[in-house]
């Protein structure tokens, strides 16, 4: 029996080591893991015109749209809820793909102690937009009886749990653009402490006029395609998608003969407490999150083989992140490859760091790292190895995945190869 508030200590002391045994994705770079990996390793930018919706004052709308299969866009094994948002469909599809990849789909009769954590920034926003589109003509009569339940982002998690018979913790992480990593961190704790047998952890977000208009007005929306760490970078390009990882006890995974991509070794948390939207300019929050992650996982700085950057392509973020790398790793920072896959699939908000965690797991699995696309004119203030344009094959045993969100939360997840 567990005692209250028991927790996993450092790697090696935790009750359990936590394996990644399945990955699921829906992204502009593809929904199949191999297709996704090939696309991002080639440095192909998938950001283009978006015509699905309009955003006042934003023209053209550029983004990286995901494509759902016909079955995923209209799942026939669910109740026929006509109000299901695209964000929920993205989440459902990626979660299903993750469980399938882990050879768990439909294979377990007792999932009472298994759960799911979903991260999102905006989540089910379409019902807000559709209500407001109707508001000028209908006023309050545009409000219908389903709004209350449709506005509840917990649906993203509960629909996954309902579909796959999960009866453990079903949780929604609403921690802005660090939500995906926060979900992975939270799920890691629940598995490592033995509170749950298995957790699905990930994130989902779609393209919304709220985000486009908001970032446009802040001057943080790229007018072309985002170019993280490049001298010409002019802001964020958005994408949509979802990413999920199946986390389970390493020993249990081995017993059932599961493929293990990597293990989640632990994580670091910090908060900037600097500004509601801007990152702390010196990267102090990133520094504290990275140092905590390294310390709690017993990882030496020279063990880091790859850093998946938050890398949004805004002037502030990329400089702050670079400064943080220098502060933590000193001169060694120049020899650590760091890249941003947002340069190819856009910034998928609450899904971003979950998708990037999947990319890190694949990097360890394939012993290769993805590049930063569109980086051809280095910025003097961004003077590290950002893996420009094309991926590289190299030994990858340990990855850091960095994420930051509005309001200043930073989450750094450490993934390691399992011997």
């Amino acid at each position, binding site marked *: *029996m567990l*005692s*209250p*508030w*028991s*927790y996993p*200590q450092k790697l090696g*002391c*935790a*009750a359990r080591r936590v394996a990644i045994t399945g990955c699921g994705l829906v992204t502009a770079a593809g929904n199949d893991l191999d297709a996704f990996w090939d696309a991002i390793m080639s440095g192909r930018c998938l950001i283009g015109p978006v015509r699905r919706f309009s*955003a*006042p*004052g934003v023209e053209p709308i550029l983004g990286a749209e995901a494509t759902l299969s016909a079955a995923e866009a209209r799942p026939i094994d669910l109740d026929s809820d006509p109000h299901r948002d695209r964000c929920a469909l993205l989440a459902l599809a990626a979660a299903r793909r993750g469980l399938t990849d882990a050879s768990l789909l439909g294979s377990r009769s007792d999932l009472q102690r298994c*759960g799911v954590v979903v991260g999102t*920034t*905006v989540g089910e926003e379409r019902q*807000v937009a559709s*209500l*407001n589109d109707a*508001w*000028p003509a209908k006023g309050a009569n545009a*409000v*219908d009886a*389903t*709004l209350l*339940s449709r506005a*509840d*982002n*917990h*649906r993203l998690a*509960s629909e996954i*749990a*309902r579909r796959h018979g999960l*009866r453990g*913790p*079903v*949780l*929604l992480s*609403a*921690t*802005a653009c660090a939500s995906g990593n*926060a979900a992975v961190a*939270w799920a890691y704790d629940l598995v490592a*402490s033995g509170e749950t047998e298995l957790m699905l952890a990930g994130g989902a977000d779609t393209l919304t*006029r709220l985000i486009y*208009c*908001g970032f446009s*007005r*802040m001057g943080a929306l790229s007018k072309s395609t985002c170019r993280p760490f490049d001298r010409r970078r002019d802001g964020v390009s958005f994408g949509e998608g979802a990413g999920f990882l199946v986390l389970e006890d390493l020993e249990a995974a081995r017993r059932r003969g599961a493929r293990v991509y990597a293990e989640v070794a632990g994580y670091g*948390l910090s*908060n900037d*407490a*600097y500004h*509601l939207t801007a990152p702390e300019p010196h990267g102090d*929050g990133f520094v*504290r999150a990275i140092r905590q992650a390294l310390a709690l996982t017993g990882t030496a700085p020279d063990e880091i083989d790859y850093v998946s950057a938050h890398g949004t392509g805004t002037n502030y973020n990329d400089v702050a992140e670079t400064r943080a790398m220098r502060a933590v790793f000193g001169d060694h920072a120049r020899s650590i490859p760091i890249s941003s896959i947002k340069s190819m699939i856009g910034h998928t908000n609450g899904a971003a760091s979950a998708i990037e965690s999947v990319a890190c797991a694949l990097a360890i699995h394939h012993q290769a790292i993805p590049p930063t696309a569109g980086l051809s004119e280095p910025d003097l203030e961004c003077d590290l190895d950002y893996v420009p344009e094309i991926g590289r094959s190299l030994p990858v045993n340990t990855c850091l995945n960095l994420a930051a969100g*509005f*309001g*200043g*939360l930073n989450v750094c997840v450490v993934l390691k190869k399992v011997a």
Partner: protein
Amino acid sequence: MNTTVPIAVTGASVLTALGNSIDALQAALRAGRTSVPRVSNVDAVETRIAGFDATQFVNVRGLRLYNRPTQLAICAAKLALTESGCEGQITGEHLGVVAACTYAHLETLFEYDRSLVVNGLMRTNPTLMPIGIPSSLGAAVALSFGAKALSVTLGDGGASSLDAIGLAARLLAAGRARACLVVSAFTPCQELLLSASRAGLLAPPGDLFVFDRAHCGTAFCEAACALLLERAEDAIARGARLQATLGGQCSTFAAERSEQARALSRAGEVALRLAGIGAGELALVSASASGSPSDDRSEAEALVAVLGRAPVPIMAVKGNLGDSQDAAGLLQTIAAIAALRAGTAAPIRGLVAPEVPGLRYATEELSIRGPHALVTSQASTGACSALVVTGAA
């Protein structure tokens, strides 16, 4: 190897229409007073705390830019911090925030998006956008008090704040912060009230009955609450007064309405097991019953399963205050701590004929003995959560 770390409550605050202090709230509950709207159940103004003025509680930078629930949350956090006496003792590097927010951002989101449609981008207030996302409430609290250890937000609907307490306790136990504010606020907005009304979820004005055969719907109400949690040994070392300790928390899920009672009872049983106590040792249950017939029924059935024959008094503050959604679990927890301290369970307002028998509902004020209380909550999506809290000796 896991490590066990006792977690203590050293600060608690409430802002409600029945009072802005725990003593005032406790007095109102014992007197059977109510703040539930009596004229209209869809008038947002009626659900709110009359005369609330954030500047009377706190002076932080940018306060006026935040929406009403965020201002409420900042004020609640300030009250909890002040009560804990940790200001000046615990620096921002060691302070974290765990917020529960499913709905608090929505009014601003509606306003921002509607302005985009009606007025266009350049005539829309750009400061509304970052406040229109769910993480903003917790981020604003963290920014207001310089909390640099962590700031995370959960959105599990009615189960949010018990889940948030559990998450904060785990993060503290792991040493990721020395103190952690758990905070939430809920302000019903007009759109949600209209939707709930059209879905038939709201009781007619003045007709809120919880656990009663006459229950016919719920009422929404504004509230904000905060707890300041610390590792007990740290709190003792700095000379803080421990108000309570947290015994165990468990989250479960019901896929179907018919599973809700079983899921909630499972959460309660695990929370008790984690706390190392049996149902017979409970002095009190602080239930989440809100007047919703199906939710009240499933909760009562769950409590029958958890408590067995143990005659544990059951209180339900939503009978007085209505449902404050994300903030409700915190409010129930604080009400439980206050009841344990006073040695009395406040009566469930309006409960005359319980629908589910076999439980010791507080149909009148009841004396309670013992330090342990079980707090339960459930969300419309199927999330269930339970927490054991132990009053200070």
